[in-house]
């Protein structure tokens, strides 16, 4: 069956238009029931959307910032690629940098795909291939917008998703092969492949999330899912505590089920870090969330978890070393992260439990989620009384004595990604004042690089955790459980105001926790835009960080704003793989609200989104290769992404040039004329230096050529208002965004008119914008 699909797809590409072939091959299960005509690019190969990619790359040009002058990928190297030099294989620096970006995106896409495959196999073995997909009952008709758009099929069962993953895996192999020495060399083609990797990644994320939503009963497009407890202080330390870390929820779900089977749901605390925590809380709201990825060390070292269960992705590679420090047994559950542990999958659970409890082994590998459930629960019950919450955090006296040994050598600071002034805080601590260290913890990403470099071996991160102990204990917040997909009816309600610009934008806070100045900045940004009645959505670590601050009234952002996909709503969509629903929402605006054909019609839908849907992704703490591939999936769809300053380490931006008028011309689909629409949106990928800069730019990047005058006036009001508040002056580029006088916000009309006059502004028309000549309705000539 899988092979059959592959062959047929090949045939389809070479004989576009012979739709019958596809319907016969893939159709047995799915196709006959989907009336919609097949679009031009079902299951696109790595070059099928190249024309679209090159079009957007013409406008948003890569700016490369190499990490170093060298390439060291093959044995002809190392090669010095400085300036105009080429490597022994002939590659130049732009080619090399774009190759690295592609590698990162292939890693990201492969990671989600492997996760999706693993999850799907597990769910199929448990529930069967015929298990129906259901992501929102009658509220969600378009269950898999990305799959429908990219593949041109409409999956109905878990089994149908296998065909999607077959395609995804094949594409990743082709993409990865292009990075081999002596293959692709042109930076533009690497970049086109980067977009392809991103699109493929979004497919994988969609498969994974709709499979688990359907089979595990996670919230189904629920605007008001339950509030979950989050924070280091939410765990009842009197009970045995099991901590789950990672992204693949089945082992954690089976722990929860086993606890319930034994009636122990109130006798054991089950909590999580990173996306497994999100998905576990979606599975059962009794689960507790500790926090984002950067909370791993502080929580493990606190000694609170009695058993640590890791699955896959974003787990510290030294998880076992850290677990051993606090005498907490570790259970690895994924082939992708075995931590060097013995495979005990086939051993009787009680034997494994005995070995863990007696300390015969510091951890085990168990590749059967059900068995993980049993072993984790039994071990936690037995080990908790023995461990007595043994912790790896020093007491205050030890801290002060340690600080006295500090040589002020600066090595810790020079190793710290955030350049935190640890030596000064140590000097204060040596005097008995630990506040400086406590304060640093807020900006610390918990990487422990400082400790590894300290010549006198001070456990610096642990010192900070001790210094901030009081605050940590009070860390108790509320987050809404991940809601999953966006309902069709929500899309219908907001489609028109978004496309016309009257809802000023959709802002998605996504990605990891590599923040330059702590997670509070994400919370502040989200609050600002929710207050301004943008649609605010979030996933992953960003969704958690947003929850971890309270307003003066003691409310977190999720308690303050409703959870719908609506103006002024703040929704937690879910884990990283739930990012698919954010892309899906943009796609559904084109298909459900605007009734554009969806099926295998990628270019047209992306063109629609780029020109009409004012959505912006913000990955303030992006660090991973997955974040890179998620972002690139958004770029191909025409959605700009802003990253925090650390995101400059992705080594390449995609920047528009506001003054380059030619690049801001689109076709007017009504007349075929080329019309200047201003730099909307100005950039596709860009790292902001500060939170203030990001906020102003978010407002700016929400503008789209299709905004109505009323919509543009609203968007300009927010842009100008934020610019004035944060910079104290009017932005000097307002004239680029005013097409007719009706675009000018009424309250500042005179001031703006004066500015326009100074700049020699001329009125332009508002077209029916498109970059695709084939969408021009009246062909000229």
């Amino acid at each position, binding site marked *: 069956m899988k092979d059959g699909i592959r062959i047929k797809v090949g045939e389809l590409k070479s004989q576009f238009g012979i739709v019958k072939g596809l319907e016969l091959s893939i159709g047995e299960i799915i196709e006959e029931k989907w009336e919609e005509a097949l679009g031009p690019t079902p299951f696109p190969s790595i070059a099928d959307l190249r024309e679209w990619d090159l079009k957007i790359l013409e406008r948003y*040009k890569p*700016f*490369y*910032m*190499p*990490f*170093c*002058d*060298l390439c060291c990928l093959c044995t002809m190297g190392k090669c*010095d*690629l*400085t*300036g105009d030099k080429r490597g022994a294989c002939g590659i130049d*620096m*732009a080619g090399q940098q774009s190759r690295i970006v592609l590698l990162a995106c292939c890693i990201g896409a492969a990671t989600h795909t492997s996760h999706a495959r693993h999850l799907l196999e597990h769910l199929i073995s448990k529930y069967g291939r015929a298990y129906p997909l259901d992501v929102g009952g009658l509220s969600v008709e378009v269950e898999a917008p990305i799959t429908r758009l990219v593949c041109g099929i409409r999956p109905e069962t878990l089994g149908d998703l296998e065909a999607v993953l077959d395609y995804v895996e094949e594409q990743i192999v082709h993409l990865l092969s292009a990075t081999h020495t002596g293959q692709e060399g042109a930076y533009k083609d690497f970049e086109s492949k980067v977009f392809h990797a991103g699109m493929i990644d979004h497919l994988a994320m969609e498969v994974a999330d709709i499979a688990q939503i359907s089979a595990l009963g996670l919230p189904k497009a629920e605007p008001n899912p339950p509030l979950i407890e989050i924070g280091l202080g939410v765990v009842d330390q009197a009970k045995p505590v099991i901590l789950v870390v990672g992204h693949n929820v089945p082992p954690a779900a089976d722990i929860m089920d086993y606890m319930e089977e034994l009636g122990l749901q109130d006798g054991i605390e089950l909590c999580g870090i990173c996306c497994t925590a999100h998905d576990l809380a979606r599975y059962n709201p009794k689960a507790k969330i500790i926090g984002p990825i950067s909370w791993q060390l502080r929580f493990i070292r606190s000694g609170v978890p009695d058993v640590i269960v890791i699955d896959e992705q974003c787990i510290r590679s030294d998880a076992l070393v850290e677990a051993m420090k606090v005498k907490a047994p570790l259970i690895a559950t994924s082939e992708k992260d075995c931590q060097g542990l013995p495979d005990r999958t086939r051993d009787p659970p009680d034997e494994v439990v005995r070995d863990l409890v007696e300390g015969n082994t510091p951890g085990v590998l168990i590749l059967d989620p059900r068995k993980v459930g049993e072993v984790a629960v039994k071990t936690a019950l037995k080990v908790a009384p023995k461990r007595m919450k043994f912790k790896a955090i020093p007491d205050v006296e030890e801290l002060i004595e340690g600080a006295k040994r500090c040589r002020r*050598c*600066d*090595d810790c600071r*020079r*190793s710290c*990604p955030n*350049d935190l002034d640890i030596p000064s805080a140590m000097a204060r601590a040596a005097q008995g004042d630990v506040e400086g260290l406590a304060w640093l913890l807020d900006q610390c990403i918990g990487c422990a690089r400082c400790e590894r*470099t300290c010549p006198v071996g001070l456990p610096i991160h642990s010192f900070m955790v001790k210094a901030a102990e009081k605050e940590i204990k009070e860390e108790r917040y509320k987050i809404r459980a991940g809601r999953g997909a966006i309902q069709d009816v929500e899309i219908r309600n907001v489609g028109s105001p978004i496309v016309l610009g009257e809802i000023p934008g959709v802002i998605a806070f996504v990605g990891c926790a590599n923040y*330059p100045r702590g997670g509070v900045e994400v919370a502040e940004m989200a609050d600002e835009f929710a207050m301004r009645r943008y649609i605010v959505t979030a996933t992953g670590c960003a969704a958690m960080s947003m929850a971890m601050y309270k307003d003066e009234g003691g409310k977190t952002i999720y308690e303050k704003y409703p959870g719908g996909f609506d103006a002024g709503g703040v929704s937690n969509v879910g884990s990283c793989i739930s990012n698919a629903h954010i892309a899906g929402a943009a796609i559904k605006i084109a298909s459900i609200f605007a009734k554009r054909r969806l099926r295998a019609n990628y270019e047209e839908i992306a063109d629609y989104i780029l020109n009409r849907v004012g959505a912006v992704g913000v990955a303030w703490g992006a660090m991973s290769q997955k974040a890179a591939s998620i972002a690139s999936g958004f770029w191909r769809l025409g959605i700009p992404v802003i990253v925090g*300053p*650390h995101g*400059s*380490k992705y*080594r390449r*931006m995609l*920047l528009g*040039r506001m003054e380059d008028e030619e690049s801001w011309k689109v076709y007017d689909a009504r007349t075929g004329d080329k019309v200047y629409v201003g730099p909307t949106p100005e950039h596709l990928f*860009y*790292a*902001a*230096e*500060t939170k*203030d*800069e990001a906020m*102003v*730019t978010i407002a700016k990047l929400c503008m789209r050529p299709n905004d109505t005058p009323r919509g543009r006036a609203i968007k300009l009001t927010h842009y100008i208002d934020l610019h004035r508040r*944060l*910079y*104290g*002056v009017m932005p000097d580029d307002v004239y680029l965004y005013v097409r007719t006088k009706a675009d000018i916000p009424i309250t500042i009309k005179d001031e703006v008119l004066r500015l326009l006059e100074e700049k020699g502004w001329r009125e332009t028309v508002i077209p029916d914008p498109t970059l695709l000549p084939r969408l021009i309705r009246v062909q000229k000539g």
Partner: protein
Amino acid sequence: MRQFEPWQIAEVPGPKKALLIPKPDVAAALLKRSRRPLMIVGSEAVEELAADEPVLEYLIQISTAGGIPMAATMGAAGRLIGRGVKLAGYMPAMEIAERLRDGSWRGFDGEGPYDLAVFVGLPYYMGWLILSGLKHFAKGLITMSLDRFYQPHATWSLPNIPRDEWRKTVKALAEALEEG
């Protein structure tokens, strides 16, 4: 710590490393020799405003005395404008960098491309990457870092120096330019 090692220990650049500005006079001579210099001030220079002796004052002096227009990144612009500093322009750091890379950019004033770009106050790693982008892709552009950390991807950089010494260095540079 050696003065001309990268400030962030792991940020090792490759074969082409910045020349060290051994003393302020050398920087002054380089700036005087430039036909079209530009100074780009980032967010961290603005944070120095809180210091007793704000480096920013010296940077303004350098800009005025040396005839070096001062531009700001978006991360710095607000505070500078609020303080009444006359800026040649302001943009996100990434946008300025991308334009500096492009030899056909006519500059903030439209008078033609810059031949020397002085950077100060970007977060170290952002400065690192931007200077690398310019080193590899901006033909004919000389870059100079006036931060208190060695920036190996610049053409010229100050060494790693303590804050006090840095303030003195920047002050001495301003004075050298004022002396003409």
